[in-house]
């Protein structure tokens, strides 16, 4: 099946690229990937997206963006790309269901929650280990839980989780926090939140559900056990670039772009996947999605 633009990913970057491309009368396919709607689907209220002074729920905002793209004729599919071939034109995008051909491709695969990388952690996922406070906080009513991380999202999750948990301990590997002063102060003022600094989680304990953590002191290397029934991760994100290694120029884990243009002509990237400056905001992703679409339109009218 042939398209003018194939968009891989369906967060703010991908869907904005979809809105602009479809509105420009191009034949657009959006492959929604492993987290349709992207990371905003795991947040609660978005307070800083322009145009929503009363705030808007993350999943709701993403549903609206999808509807807007579909309204202009973009096709959306719940498929996951398994491989890409940028060595021939049209470009070939494979999912396990189908092979799609695109005269241009916009990569908007975003990033995913970083895990600690422990075997015990992955074994207990969904059994006390979670990377989505809004999804799973409800299951920890009256329980004592831990949030690991030191940035704004860790503070936001900790605050949110006190709606359910009796106590939330924020564990951080250092004593310096990346979180903004306003978020840190909110947590410090919350009587249900405790801080435990200079501790690294080396193991998640529990058979069928989380019962505790093994912590190592960052300074003394001393190891101790800490009782808890839940572990929420907020230790940042990793760009989803596995599909593009050796196919596009990369820097660390990010795709290198110049005004969203990648090292292959006709292939564009937008949003977190190329955000080497780490703005990581819905609005900056949406903005770069718009640029990617405009660049793709320029390429399609002149470049072929």
């Amino acid at each position: 099946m042939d398209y003018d633009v194939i968009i891989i990913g369906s967060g703010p970057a991908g869907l904005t690229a979809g809105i602009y491309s479809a509105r420009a009368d191009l034949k657009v396919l959006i492959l929604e990937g492993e987290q349709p709607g992207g990371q905003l689907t795991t947040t609660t209220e978005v307070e800083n997206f322009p145009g929503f002074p009363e705030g808007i729920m993350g999943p709701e905002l993403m549903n609206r963006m999808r509807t807007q793209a579909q309204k202009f004729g973009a096709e959306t599919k719940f498929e996951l790309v398994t491989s890409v071939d940028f060595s021939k034109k049209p470009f070939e995008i494979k999912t396990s269901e189908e092979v799609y051909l695109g005269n241009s491709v916009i990569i908007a695969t975003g990033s995913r929650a970083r895990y600690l990388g422990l075997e015990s952690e992955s074994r207990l996922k969904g059994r006390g280990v979670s990377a989505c406070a809004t999804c799973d906080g409800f299951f920890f009513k009256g329980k004592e839980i831990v949030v690991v991380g030191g940035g704004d999202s860790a503070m936001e999750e900790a605050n949110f989780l006190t709606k359910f948990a009796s106590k939330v301990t924020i564990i951080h590997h250092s004593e310096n926090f990346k979180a903004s002063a306003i978020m840190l102060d909110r947590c410090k003022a919350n009587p249900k939140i405790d801080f435990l600094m200079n501790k690294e989680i080396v193991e998640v304990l529990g058979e069928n559900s989380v019962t505790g953590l093994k912590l190592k002191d960052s300074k003394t290397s001393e190891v101790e056990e800490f009782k808890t029934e839940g572990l929420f991760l907020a230790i940042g994100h990793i760009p989803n670039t596995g599909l593009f290694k050796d196919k596009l120029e990369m820097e660390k884990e990010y795709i290198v772009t110049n005004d969203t243009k990648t090292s292959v002509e006709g292939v564009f990237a937008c949003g977190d996947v190329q955000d080497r400056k780490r703005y990581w905001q819905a609005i900056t992703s949406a903005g770069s999605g718009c640029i990617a679409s405009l660049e793709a339109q320029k390429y399609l009218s002149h470049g072929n």
Partner: protein
Amino acid sequence: MITHITKENYKSVVVESKLPVLIDFWAPWCGPCQMMGPVFEEVAKEFNGKIVFAKLNTEDYPELTNGFGIQGIPCLILTKSGKEVGRAVGFLPKDLLKQKVQKLYETI
């Protein structure tokens, strides 16, 4: 057709079912669960007559949810005569969901 599980119909829909039942544990506040919904419905069609696809609102029926030890959603559990055969936690795109369900189905 997706069956909605309630406290009242749980026994007849899940425990007494001749076919295996795939239960989608979800909640209205869970973003990834909302995304899972339409994918679940699409895949249900492909297993028509082999597996019953059902949804359970974890907010409305905490006692049924606790029975399966669920602490994270979306969570899909395949059951046979009410007993768990296997589970998958987190959102799955259509093809991965299909593969996962097929694999679990073959182990029965």
